[in-house]
């Protein structure tokens, strides 16, 4: 299933946040969206996932989601959004309970995604017992459980420390290499973007417009931290964003 963003514009009151955004998200690729803070990248992601309605333009799905897909457009949130009163397994189960699945099928899915995210030993732990990285792995497991056609990741690693971020990035790459998924990955971290993105979309500051789309052809599994080619891409991205970020930083926010 591909996604098309067709000339999306949006304003909050008098403030224009997004302007004329058209973009294609091809199946099996990770599209990163980077931009200075306040450029509307999270808003755009919420629109792709149907949590918000654009003023103009539309998000179109092309083709059908796979038959065993329970929730085609699935979010991974920055602050994890785990239910604190449910265990790890309970949090994953939550998103399966509204679907007509047998007890055995549900248990099988939970066991499978917990194994894939290396959480099997923690299935009965409560979120308050887990580190930030583990919490985000639970959220990723929960997203995998519904077998999404597109994963919508809203700065999923921003709440984590640098070391954990590095480890989780490796986990994401391993997951993708094993079973390529489609993802839109919003971040303000350029290093994450060049490690995980097949395409990197640079948004300008408010109102967000597409400034440039960068393609990186190196396979994900071959990308290493400190790779000169990636560093060059990152430097180029920073060049594109620097002035925007500086100007965005000086702006008074009135939204």
């Amino acid at each position, binding site marked *: 299933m591909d996604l098309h963003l067709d000339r999306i514009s949006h304003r909050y009151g008098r403030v224009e946040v997004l302007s004329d955004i058209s973009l294609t998200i091809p199946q099996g690729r990770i599209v990163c969206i980077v931009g200075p803070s306040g450029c509307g990248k999270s808003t755009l992601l919420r629109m792709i996932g149907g949590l918000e309605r654009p003023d103009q333009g539309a998000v179109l799905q092309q083709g059908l989601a796979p038959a065993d897909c329970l929730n085609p457009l*699935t979010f991974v*949130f920055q602050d994890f*959004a785990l*239910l604190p*009163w449910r265990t790890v397994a309970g949090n994953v189960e*939550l998103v399966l309970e509204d679907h007509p699945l047998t007890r055995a099928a549900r248990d099988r899915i939970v066991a499978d995604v917990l194994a894939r995210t290396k959480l099997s030993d923690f299935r009965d732990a409560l979120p308050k017992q887990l580190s930030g990285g583990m919490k985000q792995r639970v959220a990723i497991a929960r997203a995998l459980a519904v077998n999404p056609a597109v994963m919508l990741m809203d700065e999923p690693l921003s709440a984590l420390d640098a070391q954990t971020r590095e480890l989780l990035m490796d986990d994401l790459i391993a997951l993708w290499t094993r079973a390529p998924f489609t993802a839109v990955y919003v971040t303000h971290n350029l290093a994450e973007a060049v490690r995980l993105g097949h395409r990197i979309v640079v948004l300008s500051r408010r109102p967000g417009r597409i400034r440039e789309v960068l393609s990186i052809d190196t396979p994900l599994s071959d990308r290493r931290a400190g790779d000169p080619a990636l560093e060059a891409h990152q430097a180029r991205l920073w060049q594109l964003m620097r002035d925007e970020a500086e100007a965005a930083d000086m702006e008074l926010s009135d939204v």
Partner: protein
Amino acid sequence: MSELPLTGQGGVRDDARPVPFRGGGFKPVRLRFLGAAVIVALILFVEWGTRAGVISNLTLPRPSDVLGTFRDLWTTGMLWDHLIPSLTRLAVGSALGVSTGIAVGVMIGLFSLARAGLVPLVAAIFPIPKIALLPLFVIWFGIDEGSKYALIAFGTFTPTVVSTYGAVDNVDRTLIRMGQSFGLGWWSIVRKIVLPGALPGILSGLRIGLSIGIILLVAAEMLGARYGIGAYILEAGSLYDLERLFAGVVILSALGVLTSGAIGWAERRLLAWRV
């Protein structure tokens, strides 16, 4: 400075002082028996005072005499004759008030229509001293148990409504968005996300609600009951029988401590997930 070694003990000079600690306090610690100790100390002081004559018998009854009255109540079986009707009234009345209060509070929290329509009404009835309405309740529900149930129900209802809709408002919106983004049904979101998320606030509202319930219980029994703690206290008071008056008051305090303890227990069991 540059010649000092960076690690190890080598470079400590004679005038080195430890950094003063200034991070103490502002952190409640659980002290188990201090509360009971304060009460016991106070009782012992009154006992000593009344025996030594510092406190006259007209000012305060001797705690040991109160205990004697209490023993009489127990042996004659009068304790249960008064306690059981009171407990029934409290249980029935507050169960009615709390359950409708939670239901209405959740509705206000979830539906803008209910909020717009009911919040002013709740604000209007919250400050009414419910005891002032007892004559009205007697006309509506009869002089018997009905009016007492209604009074307690009404009194526990308003604080429960207010704390419930406040608690529903405070449920983490990102969790609700998460539920929606995974395609959970409306009822699933309410049952699995909103209600558990509101539970801490609902329980602390229950604390206030039940205390008000006990106050109203006594008030209702003072105005028209043959049996019940309130009737017992009223009778003792009109005879200036301070021992019996205090025995009744002690029962009420015990009731308050017990309900608060029960809610504390429920909080520890149901809210173990809290950080």
